[in-house]
């Protein structure tokens, strides 16, 4: 059912010319796929996809549209036919691939046999936290996650280097439109923003027990700040969270994660082996996971806010000109 909706949405996106509607539909697509992830037991993934696919990325797209215009011209790409051929080719290859796949959901598929069972059977013993996804994410494959933080960090830097303007120029710019005069929104969000922030921190520190963790928490935290800056104006928001502080925070989060690895290395174990952090392996793992999740959270929140600021500053500039 959900899948069917997904297909419909995807086709609608392909055929809609109003880019604004496309972005709306993309948001729906994000929500849909997230619901689908819940239905397939991937709660952590659903959590993330909801925050990213339905939250952050449509917002960024809208900001882009605000700058680049809403309607797509009628012309198709030069590579229209070629593209179509390519698509068919890829589709064919995929279909060939499915022919020998194990059936969906089957218990004895190879993917369920080799590595995965150990995580489920042993992780509680070895890491002592119930959320297996967090165990795998933060400990068994902790290095992947370090890489993931670096990816976000890279993107933040990239966006900054693309959209930043030198300090001199920045000072010249004038006031910024805000929605402050919007009484209802102002009051309601004054109540909501602190609640969102605390919720974000709750998600941050309970990733070991339920769905959630550093990345999701970072996104929610950033979302609250973004809401604030939408309503009260970029300038006000920047006074609250200074940009250069954010840059440093983004770097520090990554460093915090890395330093856990360095510490474990210095105490004689392998990189990111949290057992080095305490006598008892369970405690060590737990400390390690809390610290690295904190690193993830800090970097993600800082980078997301930075990216959003960079986008919306461009808009303000455009609007003022």
């Amino acid at each position, binding site marked *: 059912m959900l899948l069917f909706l997904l297909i419909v949405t995807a086709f609608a996106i392909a055929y809609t010319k109003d880019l604004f509607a496309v972005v709306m539909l993309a948001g729906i697509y994000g929500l849909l796929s997230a619901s689908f992830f819940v239905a397939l037991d991937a709660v952590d993934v659903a959590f993330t996809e909801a925050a990213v696919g339905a939250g952050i990325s449509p917002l960024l797209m809208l900001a882009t549209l605000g700058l680049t215009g809403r309607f797509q011209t009628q012309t198709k790409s030069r590579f229209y036919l070629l593209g179509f051929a390519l698509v068919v080719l890829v589709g064919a290859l995929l279909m060939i691939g499915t022919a020998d796949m194990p059936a969906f959901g089957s218990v004895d598929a190879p993917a369920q046999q080799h590595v995965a069972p150990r995580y489920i059977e042993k992780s509680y013993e070895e890491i002592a936290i119930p959320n297996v996804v967090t165990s795998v994410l933060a400990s068994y494959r902790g290095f992947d996650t370090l890489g993931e933080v670096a990816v976000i960090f890279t993107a933040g830097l990239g966006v900054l280097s693309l959209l930043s303007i030198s300090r001199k120029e920045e000072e010249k710019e004038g006031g910024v439109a805000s929605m402050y005069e919007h*009484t*209802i929104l102002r*009051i*309601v969000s004054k109540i909501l923003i*602190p609640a969102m922030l605390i919720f974000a*921190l709750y998600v941050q*520190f*309970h990733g070991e027990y339920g769905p959630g963790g550093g990345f999701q928490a970072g996104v929610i935290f950033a979302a609250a700040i973004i809401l604030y800056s939408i309503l*009260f104006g970029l300038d006000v928001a920047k006074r609250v969270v200074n940009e250069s502080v954010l840059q440093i925070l983004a770097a520090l989060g990554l460093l915090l994660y890395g330093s856990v690895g360095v510490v474990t290395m210095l105490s004689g174990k392998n990189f990111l082996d949290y057992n080095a952090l305490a006598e008892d392996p369970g405690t060590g793992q737990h400390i390690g996971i809390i610290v690295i999740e904190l690193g993830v959270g800090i970097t993600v929140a800082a980078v997301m806010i930075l990216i959003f600021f960079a986008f919306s500053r461009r808009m303000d500039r455009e609007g003022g000109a």
Partner: protein
Amino acid sequence: MRHTVSMFVVLSLIWLLNSGFFTGLHLSLGLLSVVLVVWVAYRMDVVDHESAPVHLTLRLPSYYAWLMKELVLSNIDVTKRIWLGKKSISPSMAVLPLSQRTDMGRVIYANSITLTPGTVAIDLNSDTVVVHSLTAGGIEDLRSGEMDRRVSRLEKQK
């Protein structure tokens, strides 16, 4: 100060209700988080009577009880009209006066209007509210002013 304390309490409550873990580690993390958020909120300048409406707390429940009743009634009404089709509705718009003195009161009023199906507050000014209603009757009900009075009563006696 009063507002800070009340925000602190509310935030702690949210944390505890969500968390469900009462070990030392979690409680101390929770305390840290709450302090952090209060601090950020301070920087954001959102700690005041609008974000932490202590003075309203006692009166809200009875108001909400009344609102619930209204909600149910208007829901039934709108549902009926949906099934009856286009002919049964008569969309109308009106500017209504309001008597609240604080922004908070106005917001509660406007949101109550919106919350009851069939009427939506479109614009809120200092002494009027623009309302769109599914039926002419919806406007009349509001004009009778009961909701307005009740909300105003909420904000009295600070």
